[in-house]
């Protein structure tokens, strides 16, 4: 596959690979995709007291496009509020990385991962109680 330089850069030098403590109240974890599909993304956000995402980490099982999409996603969410991060669209990711048409679905998954992480964080703070768990995963 002929990939863009931006994509190759994210593959060779992925940003923010790692794990945050999903039990931490300030962390939201999104786990999307399925091993059977060859695409699984885990994206985590750490939200500061000012409501802005102060850190983000990802791990991905997937092709070069999937890795690059999720790496870019963690880069973009940092510094944003949850509402701002929710505005990130897969089309922006696909454009930035010049994803070939057959790989657009990887950017969709990355957008899903961001939203899943945000949802998990918000669920934890719904009733003001701490909740454990990862959205999409069975207990």
């Amino acid at each position: 596959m002929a990939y863009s330089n931006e994509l190759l850069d994210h593959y060779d030098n992925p940003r923010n690979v790692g794990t945050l403590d999903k039990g931490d109240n300030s962390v939201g974890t999104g786990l999307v995709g399925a091993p059977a599909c060859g695409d699984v993304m885990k994206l985590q956000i750490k939200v500061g007291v000012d409501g802005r995402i102060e850190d983000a980490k990802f791990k991905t099982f997937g092709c070069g496009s999937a890795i690059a999409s999720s790496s870019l996603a963690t880069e973009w969410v940092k510094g944003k509020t949850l509402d701002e991060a929710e505005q990130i669209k897969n089309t922006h990711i696909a454009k930035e990385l010049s994803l070939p048409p057959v790989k657009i679905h990887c950017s969709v998954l990355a957008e899903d991962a961001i939203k899943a992480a945000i949802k998990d964080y918000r669920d934890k703070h719904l009733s003001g109680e701490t909740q454990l768990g990862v959205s999409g995963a069975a207990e």
Partner: protein
Amino acid sequence: MSVTKTVLNGSASTAGANTNQPQLPIYLDYQATTPCDPRVVQAMLPYFTEKFGNPHSRNHSFGWDAEEGVENARRQVASIIGADEKEVIFTSGATESNNLALKGVAHFHKDKKNHIITTVTEHKCILDSARHLEMEGFEVTYLPVQQNGLIDLEQLKAAITDKTVIVSVMAVNNEIGVIQPLAEIGKICRARGVYFHTDAAQAVGKIPLDVNAMNIDLMSISGHKIYGPKGIGALYVRRKPRVRLEASIHGGGQERGMRSGTLPTPLCVGLGEACAIAEKEMGAEAERLKYLSDRMYNKITEQLPEVFLNGDRAQRIPGNLNISFAYVEGEGLMMGIKDLAVSSGSACTSASLEPSYVLRALGVEEELAHTSLRLGIGRFTTEQDVDYAVEHIVQSVNRLRAMSPLWEMAQEGIDIKSIQWAEH
């Protein structure tokens, strides 16, 4: 070996050149295609500009010289499979041979017999031809394979009816390299009066083949899989007892009426030479490749856990290793080993986004199918190539596992199968 590599790479360096660093990129996709052996190219050259005559021209030396080249090649092809030269016809490749064998036989006998048996792991040209025949009204049984990739002979016996005209089972699978029990299949078919066709594209020159000992009635042969040129193949068609088939390509009646068209003399000569070389060197080459393949497999499994070989280890050509690296996706892995030319069974590498149907037929679970790499070594692969490849594969797998949420979960003892995945 380094001389051939030098010739291949077009450089003028001597055979004593530094062999510590392999020539990059390293070709490890020998099941996809092979480079022409330089000796094959040498044999072909005179037939382009000197002996360029039409081999069917009966009246002058240009024709006679070309005919001599073709008939000599025919003998060479027949020799490596234990056939008579009158039983070998040239085609444009194994795809055409497979089409001709299945459709040609089916159509000729359609008034009396309408049932065909094949397997789920055949090459697409067999499967698609079979589907086409189904649309025409033929019945097709697609035999499943066991976990090791081999068919169950009892299932074959049970599937044969008095309407069965042909059984088609590939000799060696292109994705996993496993060798089917040809002699046993031939024996069963002969006893039941059914034609036995085998797609031997990946087998000729790699394992010994004998159409008589194995009771084979039709065999497809490919030039570019055995260090010959692309665009040429052959079909072996038994004469005693005679196999009747309908031609697909009509015209001047060449190839005993089974395949019209002026024969491409240089390509025929190339295929013949490739067969002659393979016949002579098959034994030694198989040994060398076994050594390299074992070296590659052992070094990988020594350094990486959770690595699985797809297909039978023993009943396999030595040039093929098809390996699943759990928790690491195949296309992503291939990007990390840019200097290695390999292929993968992952959906992400196919235009259709479907994972390999061969791996699925083995019962390999989808997530492992996505993690597979096919490593194909061959005549020009060196030990340095293998060691370099292993080092970089191991490095890349470790790097990607560190980035993989599935690897992380496995390390934490989480059973990945228990998770409800939110598919999209």
